[in-house]
């Protein structure tokens, strides 16, 4: 089995441990990830706030390159939820609107690219839960994680607005994967509540309150697992400041899902880049 792989900009920078652990996990699973040649930024939440055409054309560029790499490799796998949504939106909107597709292709044509709509865009969590599944993981699990209670955090953009692989209000796709490691699942109501996304940079006082509510909801759990670099940095980057404003200790380990699954699969901690996380992961060393 092979996937086309779109890491996205965060995974080359502040979220490099998400890239490293995803690759390590798929290596053990025996699944090849073929990086899209010369992919470029998906536009994040910036393009859609500046120009409608740019917000479709930017991700469409990487989709068109992916199509040019042939049909022998399957779907496009995307670990970042914002990249996933932007690529998916470009694919879905150009499929619905031939005029938009023509305009996008007008932008792409001078580079020798043409979008045809042949590729499916899949989130990492979708692939892990549907293509591999808890049963597929179970045979690779060597270390029980039974002493941990884990809070699955889904965030927004892998679930909404496109309802693809899970319930957008009450998702459960991470639970069988966590249970397969022997760990328990923390039941909570904050799993789909927004972390503030880029408001953390523009209006930090607003976003830090949003994160405080999420961290408070996870009290009792040993860790939160995430599937998005924006959620991850918002949940772990400001815990000291948030604890001081909330007048209580809200520090909590935050891991990317492939890091947590990788630990259960016996992958070396360095190969999962646990030392790169901003939250204190000493409970996992």
């Amino acid at each position, binding site marked *: 089995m092979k996937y086309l792989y779109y890491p996205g900009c965060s995974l080359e920078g502040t979220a490099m441990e998400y890239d490293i652990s995803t690759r390590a996990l798929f290596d053990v699973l025996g699944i090849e990830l073929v990086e899209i040649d010369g992919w470029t930024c998906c536009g994040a939440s910036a393009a859609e706030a500046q120009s409608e055409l740019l917000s479709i054309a930017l991700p469409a560029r990487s989709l068109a390159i992916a199509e040019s790499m042939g049909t022998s490799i399957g779907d496009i796998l995307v670990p970042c939820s914002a990249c996933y949504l932007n690529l998916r939106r470009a694919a879905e909107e150009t499929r619905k609107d031939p005029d938009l597709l023509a305009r996008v292709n007008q*932008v792409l044509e001078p580079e020798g690219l043409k979008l045809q709509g042949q590729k499916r865009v899949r989130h990492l969590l979708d692939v892990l839960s549907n293509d591999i599944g808890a049963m597929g993981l179970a045979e690779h699990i060597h270390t029980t994680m039974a002493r941990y209670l884990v809070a699955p955090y889904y965030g927004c953009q892998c679930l909404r607005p496109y309802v693809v692989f899970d319930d957008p209000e009450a998702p459960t796709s991470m639970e069988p994967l966590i249970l397969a490691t022997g760990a328990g699942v923390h039941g909570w109501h904050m799993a789909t509540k927004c972390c503030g*996304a880029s408001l953390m940079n523009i209006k930090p006082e607003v976003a830090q309150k949003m994160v405080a509510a999420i961290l408070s909801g996870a009290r009792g759990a040993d860790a939160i697992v995430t599937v998005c670099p924006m959620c991850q940095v918002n949940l772990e980057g400001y815990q000291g400041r948030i604890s001081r404003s909330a007048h209580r200790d809200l520090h909590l380990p935050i891991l990317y899902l492939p890091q947590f699954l990788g630990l259960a699969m016996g992958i070396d901690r360095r190969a999962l880049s646990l030392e*790169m996380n901003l939250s204190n992961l000493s409970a996992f060393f």
Partner: protein
Amino acid sequence: MLSATGSPTVYPEEKAEDLLGPLQEKLCACIQCGTCTASCRNAHLMDFTPRRLWRLVLMGQTEEIFHSKTFALCSACYYCTLRCPRGLPLTDAMNLLKQLGAKKDVAGYRPNARFYGSFLDSVRRHGRINEVEFMRRYFILMKNPAIPIKFTPLGIRLLRKKKISMLPNKRKPEYPLDQFFQRVEKLENQQ
């Protein structure tokens, strides 16, 4: 277009229908039920709730809309879009207001517009975001030393983890998109 006090002026050269027309088309089936407001994590911070904002859009109340903080507080969680009983693309509507707010250089939206503008400048130059360059550009545009000071603790931790670097990374591949952006701009202006 701004008055000396930095607040947006009325746009006499543009009728509200011309400015808000595409948005009014998207929202004309709104029944004012308020599901969007009830679903919004940030509604309590907004001067106009999302429901009231949609009504203002349909009434063509340009002044009130661009004076309000509402669309600058949208974090694109898509709950309103998911739950709208009329199936209206409400997050996209917020994005359209963000685009207009940036184009009109509306005072209340300026920090957001500068943040996203700095981001896209970096993408235009390199094809992929250079996080240090982008934040540095944002700090310069904001001309407020308190902003970079707030980011310093996180910046130091990211530097220590070698996740960001103050030096340009010569080994990183570059995919300049200046001509790509120019083609998008040209096509958009033709409309």
